[in-house]
């Protein structure tokens, strides 16, 4: 139970961010559903955001450390906004793919092969 009295640091946030990032990468690599790949992209972006917020927070650092402060939070803000924009376009592409190929399976998108 001493686990619950260890103060949280940047490293712990980086661990969570790393797990999310790796899960996103595996999701992008293995999912056959196009929307599954999109979900992997969202996980990757959130892992990166967690890193930014962790570096931006002064309460997670040891005394005398320099936190990014406002810069980190604003970068994370822009990442959230851009992720929303990119998800909209990616979803439009996915819908076009579904309407034209009558399947959402990305393994079937092989018309340019060979």
């Amino acid at each position, binding site marked *: 139970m001493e686990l619950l009295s260890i103060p949280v640091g940047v490293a712990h946030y980086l661990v969570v961010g790393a797990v999310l990032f790796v899960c996103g990468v595996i999701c992008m690599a293995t999912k056959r559903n196009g929307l599954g790949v999109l979900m992997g992209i969202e996980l990757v972006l*959130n892992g990166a955001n967690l890193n930014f917020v962790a570096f931006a927070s002064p309460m997670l650092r040891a005394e005398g450390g320099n936190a990014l402060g406002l810069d980190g939070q604003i970068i994370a803000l822009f990442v959230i906004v851009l992720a929303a*924009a990119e998800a909209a376009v990616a979803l439009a592409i996915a819908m076009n793919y579904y309407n034209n190929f009558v399947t959402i399976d990305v393994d079937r998108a092989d018309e340019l092969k060979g």
Partner: protein
Amino acid sequence: MSVETIHWHTFFFLLMALLACTMAVAVVVTSNIVRMAFYLVVSLGAVAGLFFLAGADFLGAMQLMIYVGGTLVLLAFGVMLTARGPFISMRTGGGQWILAAIIGGSLLAVLLQVAFSVKAWTGRSLAQHPPAIEAAPTAGPIGLALLGVRPDRLDQQNAGLRRGMSGYLLVFEIISVHLVVVLVGAAYLARARKRPGQQRAPAQPSPSRRSPLPVGE
């Protein structure tokens, strides 16, 4: 061994972190697309909680409103529109899983090793740990920074450094234009048009189903 004090910050961090990580793993493991969307929602909600715990309250609320309440709703709509029969559960072959696990595992190992390599990143020592979480207000400074004023660097004495510390006004405008472009582009891409499957003649009602009575249905 009894515990005298629990740092509630650590307790809630562990709760949210476990939730985020297990739900992210669940997204990878499950093959049902609708459940994937649900687990992703919970995972990103836990990430918003982690933002709140790091003192970024405005960012946490932004994550909830825009990411979870906007982007994921869009994704859920897409999932609902394409969740037909065979597409709900699609399995991947074993070979791909093994390859992805190797790559993912090695990446995770590298990132974990980096995370614990810097001394200053392991957090404050117990003696310095404040009893309560003090959170500076962030909404005002973020708003000012987006308009070009950097309220956290007002005391920078070096004139040369000050000139390089403009706010984020240009980036803000660029992103606004970018969003307009994305809006127009996505609306154009997603416009309704005749699908190739509808070019065939409209389906005739089968004669066995047609009722002999002239009563309208």
